[in-house]
């Protein structure tokens, strides 16, 4: 009890300092949570595009980005005919721009693609999206920022297209994207095939056989299960690493804040620590007081940071400018990890102050007035 009273007393004695330190950790945690969640969400959305009604993705081997992948038309037709394949949908990815909107994702797809089948058609019908159609379908968000409605002409990239319809999808990228019939997309992006083929197998047990067949028939292609793709795709890995690195830097700054607070705290309590030593506190007990204080600061900061981070994510989710692009679904694993990292950072930050406190020589310290 006295042990906790000592910790509490020390923290309350310099309230502003404690508050500043807690705020440092809180903002670090909030930043980490926000960056990691937003990027994880973005990854989730992108992988969602690929996994729409399919469990396997076929793309060109050793490409750094799917936008550069080129799957030949022959492979497209062949794979769709394999007996183990239920259906195979080609997707051609492209990036275009329009006035005021430098980046718009384009999806070149076929009329029976699950992305359009599953979408809610706000304007137009799926029938209008036939292979020979010379128009485009807009995601709801894209229609908003392009100020376009069905039947109107919109400038997209170097062309102008008639809007065949507007769809609402659950995926932010799709909602802010443009859907073109595959043929039109191939002509637009000067490609003969597609970027990827998303494949649904008749039986999931056939996955290994399917992968082996792709490997042997098309040595320049690779087939990966969606979860496998998410784990290994270099862009996702770079994004995840960036997210954790940015968050880690923030946390490191928070750790320095705790270290600064704790060292100042120890410096101003040299006499008090000496009194504890003279009254039987061991070096380990003295160190544990300093570490416990840092833990309390870190825990408070981490919890506060989680609250701030959640609030920030929810705000971002509903910001009109970011509508649909931020997936604010909080992952408990991320929250726990951020919490644990914050506490560890706080404790590590307090190691030197704790060591310093351990080394205080009571006889010298008691001479201070």
């Amino acid at each position: 009890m006295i042990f906790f009273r000592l910790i509490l007393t020390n923290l309350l004695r310099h309230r502003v300092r404690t508050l500043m330190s807690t705020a440092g950790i809180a903002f670090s945690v909030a930043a980490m949570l926000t960056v990691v969640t937003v990027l994880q969400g973005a990854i989730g959305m992108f992988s969602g595009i690929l996994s729409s009604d399919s469990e396997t993705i076929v793309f060109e081997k050793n490409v750094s980005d799917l936008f550069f992948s080129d799957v030949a038309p022959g492979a497209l037709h062949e794979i769709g005919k394999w007996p183990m394949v239920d259906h195979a949908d080609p997707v051609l990815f492209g990036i275009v721009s329009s006035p005021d909107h430098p980046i718009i994702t384009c999806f070149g797809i076929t009329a029976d693609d699950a992305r359009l089948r599953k979408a809610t058609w706000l304007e137009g019908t799926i029938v209008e999206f036939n292979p020979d159609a010379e128009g485009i379908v807009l995601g709801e968000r894209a229609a908003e920022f392009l100020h376009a409605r069905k039947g109107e002409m919109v400038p997209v990239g170097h062309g102008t297209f008639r809007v065949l319809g507007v769809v609402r999808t659950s995926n932010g990228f799709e909602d802010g994207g443009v859907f073109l019939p595959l043929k039109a997309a191939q002509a637009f992006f000067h490609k003969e095939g597609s970027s990827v083929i998303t494949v649904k197998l008749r039986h999931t047990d056939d996955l290994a056989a399917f992968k082996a067949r792709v490997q042997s028939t098309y040595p320049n292609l690779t087939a990966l299960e969606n979860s496998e793709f998410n784990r290994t795709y270099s862009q996702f890995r770079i994004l995840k690493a960036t997210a954790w690195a940015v968050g880690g830097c923030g946390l490191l700054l928070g750790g320095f804040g705790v270290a600064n607070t704790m060292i100042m705290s120890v410096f101003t309590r040299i006499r008090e620590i000496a009194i504890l030593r003279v009254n039987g506190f061991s070096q380990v007990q003295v160190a544990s007081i300093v570490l416990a204080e840092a833990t309390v600061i870190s825990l408070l900061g981490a919890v506060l940071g989680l609250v701030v981070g959640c609030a920030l994510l929810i705000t971002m989710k509903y910001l009109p400018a970011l509508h649909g692009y931020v997936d604010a679904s909080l992952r408990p694993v991320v929250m726990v990890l951020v919490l644990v990292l914050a506490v560890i950072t706080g404790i590590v930050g307090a190691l030197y102050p704790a060591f310093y406190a351990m080394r205080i020589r009571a006889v010298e310290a008691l001479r201070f007035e």
Partner: protein
Amino acid sequence: MSENNQRVAPISPAIIEATELWKSYEDDTIRVLQGVSLHVDQGETVALCGPSGCGKSTLLHLIGGLDSPDRGRIVVGGRELVSGNRALDLLRHEVGFVFQLHNLLPDLTLAENCLIPTVAAGTKRAVAEARLHDLAARTGLGHRLHTRIQKLSGGERQRTAICRALMNSPRILLADEPTGSLDERTASSVFELLIGMAASEGLTLLMATHDRALAARCDRTLEMRDGKILSNPAE
């Protein structure tokens, strides 16, 4: 029971045995102790007298494990002391300290201050509180247990310091000018308390003091000058 709590059988009848202690500061330019030897038996009350700077406090610090000598040997309660902080850990439950300045933590209450040594020793709360109430009653502080230190008088603070020093039932009480900052009347009552508690607890009391009248009431008085003990009946 931890190693530090164990009471080791003395290797000599003395509870404090100091031999040829030398201590200097600032590269040997200030010689505080110059070959001091001391022998104190269990239950004795010994006063160390002498002018300021003669080495009384330094001698107490060395015996209490707060500092280590440049040369010489110290055996306290059968344990030979090693250097600095480790010596303090060795003696943490063997020795109680009372200083001229009470050295209490101002943000805590009287009771909380007194319980500090028991927290360090890992004493059960019920046992610690029973001891606290007993000591507080005997030192006349029973009604002030939950008062913050800042609201206590000088005498009450020093009595609290005595109370705290006795919480772990040490065998030795080292008092460095315990009445030095008190008025004559309060000093006398604190000294009475100190002597009385030492007697009732069977403590060995080694006290540094300027007050010869108080010193005369101890079993023995040792006179120190320039880092040396001038008269030591035990020698």
